[in-house]
């Protein structure tokens, strides 16, 4: 699996929000996208999912232009977890996970025993099988994220796009979600996620994309991009990166704002 964006400009009704984004992502890599609110991250994701047309540029998977692909075909390659999502009807967690099987079903069929098995297996992978009969609308934010990740696993795609997966989660749940994402990438899934927390990029990203003021500020390997100078430009505040001594994360740093 290889995702390529080539000079992609995205926006609403022909008005660009984010210009000339180019990157490529391979199987097993995690790309973190950092950028202030309103910098076009969500628009970029929606454009990759074909919910919006790019204004210019080309998006391709394994070298093939996806602009003519159906939603069905895209959903076979990319799983997408939007931000703050809640359905109107109280589906159970298992039913929500089963929705991930939709691209593998015909238009007139319902999930078979095998699909249920796959859905339950993916919930078991994340250790949330106990939630399966609970209403999705009644469980906590962290649990919802896990259910949606389980749905993406059941969808059996090679790429997962997550729009601020740790938004509104407490400290423990953030770590829980991110560790699961890390595990998925170690199994070969490519992951793109937007985040507002630089440490998440330090801990989990292979590649980092910084976007600001309608354009790309920096893109590249984590070490190259996550510099004090870039972060300062990105968020427009003074900040300091402090190294953390850790054996498992040799280059780990924490970002402290407001310090010169």
């Amino acid at each position, binding site marked *: 699996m290889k995702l390529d964006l080539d000079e992609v400009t995205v926006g609403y009704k022909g008005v660009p929000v984010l210009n000339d984004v180019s990157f490529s992502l391979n199987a097993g890599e995690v790309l973190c996208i950092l950028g202030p609110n309103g910098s076009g991250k969500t628009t970029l994701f*929606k454009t990759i*999912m*074909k*919910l919006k047309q790019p204004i210019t540029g080309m998006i391709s998977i394994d070298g093939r232009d996806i602009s003519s692909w*159906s*939603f*069905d*075909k*895209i*959903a*076979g390659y*990319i*799983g*997408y977890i*939007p931000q703050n*999502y809640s*359905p*109107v*009807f*109280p*589906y*159970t967690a298992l*039913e929500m996970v089963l*929705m*991930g099987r*939709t*691209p593998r*079903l015909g*238009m*007139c*069929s*319902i*999930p*078979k*025993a*095998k699909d*249920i*098995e796959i859905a*339950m297996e993916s919930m*078991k992978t994340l250790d949330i*099988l106990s939630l*399966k*009969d609970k209403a999705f*609308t*009644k469980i906590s934010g962290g649990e919802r994220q896990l259910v949606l990740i389980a749905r993406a696993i059941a*969808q059996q795609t090679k790429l997962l796009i997550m729009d601020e997966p740790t938004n509104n989660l407490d400290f423990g749940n953030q770590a829980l979600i991110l560790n699961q994402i890390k595990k998925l990438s170690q199994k070969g899934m490519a992951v793109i996620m937007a985040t507002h927390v630089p440490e998440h990029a330090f801990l989990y990203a292979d590649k980092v994309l910084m976007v600001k003021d309608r354009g790309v500020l920096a893109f590249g390997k984590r070490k190259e991009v996550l510099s004090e100078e870039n972060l300062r430009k990105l968020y427009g505040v003074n900040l300091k990166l402090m190294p953390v001594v850790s054996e498992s994360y040799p280059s780990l740093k924490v970002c402290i704002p407001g310090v010169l």
Partner: protein
Amino acid sequence: MEGNISMDIKVNELNDKNLMSIRHTHIKKKFTFLIIILAIVFITSFIVGRYPLTIEQLLDFFIIRHFDVSKEIPDVVETVIMNLRLPRILAAVLVGSSLAASGAAYQGIFKNPLASPDILGASAGAAFGASLAIYFSFSHYGIQLSAFIFGIISVLLAFIISQRIRTDSAVALVLTGMLVSTLFSSAISLIKYVADPFDKLPAITFWLMGSLSGMGIRSVKFACIPIFISLTVLYFMRWQINVLSLGDEEAKTLGVNTEGSRLIIIICSTILTATSVCISGVIGWIGLVIPNLARLLVGSNYVYLLPATMVMGGTFLLVVDCVSRGLFPVEVPLGILTSFIGAPFFIILLYKGWRE
């Protein structure tokens, strides 16, 4: 529900089989329960009415006379069963199922537990189309077609206008539906105003109140083809309704061709509404009340919700029709009875807020 049986067997191979199969056994029990109730109500409906029959007479008519040729069936019994009760009972089940199923489908695709054929304006639109056709003395087919066309116009109007309103979309759809309903109701009044007071006006007025009395087997035959086709299509697309109820973008990212699927479901639901309106007039509230009751009973998953809604809708209208025939000295139009039940239910729904 042959799919469930295989689910049970397969899931047994998993470690956590027990919980899963318990849930499916539960749902199977509930369906058996619903179908038994429908059967009981179905049989009881033959007995209730101005000319009371006994169970014995029913048995004689339906079973024993086929084995015992010497059995004499009085002409009046045969007439009551074949010409009065049977068409009426079949029509009640068909119309009840259709209205309930179309309500459930509208609720799913518009992501709104308050949607239903009457609230979206589909009933009013179809009633206008049919009144117009009666006014111009169209044939049966003309009435049906006109009801369908105006039904679909009103649903699309309500939906499109609600999309342009920047407010809570669930409430917006209810408001725009009311608007469209009012518009078509006024148009119906206009037709009544200009209609011939000795011939067309009473026909339109009584039919609009909603009634199954005087139902002939011909009307039932005429209605059952579009109803069966639409119910079958909805039944096969019930997983798509689940995914569509998550919202447009969400459904697309799960691979659903939302425009196509939604259009097919709107067309089928509106055919169901229009056909029901054509044969029985405007019977409100079933499309709102029954799907929500079914949701409490079997959950939100349309795989179970839609068939449960169909069975419960048929049962409900049959019960209401029995009440209208049996309880009052004069037959009360069904539309009046269903709103006495539906309106308080709607208030409870609003009060509970539903989407906690």
